[in-house]
């Protein structure tokens, strides 16, 4: 079709995204190569100082910690989401189940975190009950540890795993499971030899939707974590707002972005790769 009027349609989009998305990302990248300013900010001097600072056991530990916490949370989410989504997709009342999943999905993110503070916090329901019954004298430290970070991550992002899996499993041809059973597979074999490969793309998009926000997490460890569960997002915020080391913050951001894009590439390639064609192992 005529391209001239086409430009009128996309001009606002291109301008907005170019000026207000690409430019900020470009600036953050360039700041990571600049020298730290005397009173915060940067001075116009190109250096690799920020990256050299990054190359330390402290940051390596935080990086691995982030990977571990978000990885464990993601695996738990997928393991919970597959049977749930499978049940929903086979149910006759799909809309009802979908609705029940959407409500917590739309409930305010901070409220969902707060619910766990109210339950597990020092003044939370569990501790208050136990104190009242007299089983403990001191509140238990149920919150502010790596486990509570994983728990709350799973709680907040689980719908992100269920929804893409649901829409993939809904399209799955369930007679394939019967075919597998007919050919001698047990129920479990039919599941992992036929269902799982067939919904691979859904699994990878669920991984994507859960892992990326969990990996770049700031709020959850800030609210229910401790120093052991510090994630990269918390370090970025700390360097930016407290230490005011902007180049370092920019360098960590760059690293986090690269790691995310790498994970993204792996997931997308794995998810869209056609099944192996080689038949004989």
């Amino acid at each position, binding site marked *: 079709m005529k391209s001239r009027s086409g430009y009128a349609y996309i001009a606002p989009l291109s301008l907005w995204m170019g000026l207000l998305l690409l430019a900020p990302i470009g600036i953050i990248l360039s700041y990571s190569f600049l020298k730290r300013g005397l009173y915060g900010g940067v001075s116009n001097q190109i250096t690799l100082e920020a990256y050299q600072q990054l190359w330390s056991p402290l940051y390596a530990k935080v990086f691995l910690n982030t990977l571990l916490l978000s990885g464990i949370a993601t695996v738990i989410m997928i393991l919970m989401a597959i049977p749930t989504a499978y049940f929903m997709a086979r149910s006759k009342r799909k809309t009802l189940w979908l609705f029940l999943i959407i409500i917590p999905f*739309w409930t305010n993110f901070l409220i969902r975190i707060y619910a766990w503070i109210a339950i597990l916090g020092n003044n939370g329901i569990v501790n208050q009950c136990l104190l009242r019954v007299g089983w403990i004298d001191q509140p238990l430290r149920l919150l502010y540890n790596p486990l509570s970070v994983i728990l709350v991550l799973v709680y907040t992002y689980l719908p992100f795993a269920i929804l893409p899996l649901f*829409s993939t499993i809904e399209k799955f041809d369930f007679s394939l499971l019967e075919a597998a059973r007919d050919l001698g597979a047990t129920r479990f074999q039919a599941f992992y030899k036929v269902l799982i490969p067939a919904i691979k793309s859904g699994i990878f998009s669920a991984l994507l939707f859960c892992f990326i926000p969990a990996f770049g997490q700031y709020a959850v460890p800030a609210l229910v974590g401790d120093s052991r569960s510090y994630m990269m997002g918390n370090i970025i915020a700390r360097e930016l707002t407290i230490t005011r080391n902007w180049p370092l913050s920019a360098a960590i951001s760059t690293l986090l972005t690269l790691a995310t894009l790498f994970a993204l590439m792996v997931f997308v390639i794995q998810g869209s790769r056609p099944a192996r064609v080689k038949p004989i192992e």
Partner: protein
Amino acid sequence: MSPQKRGLFTWTMVLVTLAFFYLPLLLLTFFSFNHSKSMVWEGASFRWYAALFLHSPDLWASFGKSIMIALSASLVATLIGSLGAIGLYWYAFKSKRVITVLTLLPLLLPEIIMGVSFLIFFSKIGLPLGLFSIFIAHTTFCIPYVFLIMTARLDEFDYSVIEAAYDLGAQEWVVLTNVILPICRPAIMASLLMSATLSLEDFVITFFVAGPGSTTLPLYIYSMIRFGVSPVINALSVVLIVGTAIIAVLTSRLFKYVIQK
């Protein structure tokens, strides 16, 4: 393979998942009616609802700001995103792929990266942090969702409808307003809804780009829950959950587009 046995495992998992989702919310609801300030039941009372509705002016001020930003950001994001989606879908450009990737980028970046880059960007160009900077940030992260929802809708409908309109002598503008936009209406509604929800929800990006005097509701909630349990937040949670449920019921026919994101 009895039918009872067939679904036992998945049935259990669904119950576990739903209990996991709803038990915390139900507990919050229960304790929002507690007379006591602590999480120990001491009798029913509406005092925290009274405190929430009658004695929390700061909270309601922040809610007003959130609504203002959500409305403006969702309108602008839907306008820009819809036009862009229509343009990219129906016209051929050399830069089509580049623009698509750029548009979807905010979906792929961790929120904190968006927040940090906006903060540094705004300070670099000298834009004071406040409601306007929040509006810009929110519009930017809403656009990709609008774009995806609209593209899903455009995928569904038959291009020959457009050709028929041209064939019947319609001008470009008439085709847009009389054919394309009415057909896309459910997707446009879904986009507005999705954008407004995301904007009302957003904490992390707003946290970085907000300035003094531009405290939105999530920022206000954050400042409250950092200090632990408060019965007023219990009451607020219930109000928000009920509000969410009502909006979800009213808009359930738009789910299709929201889920496809």
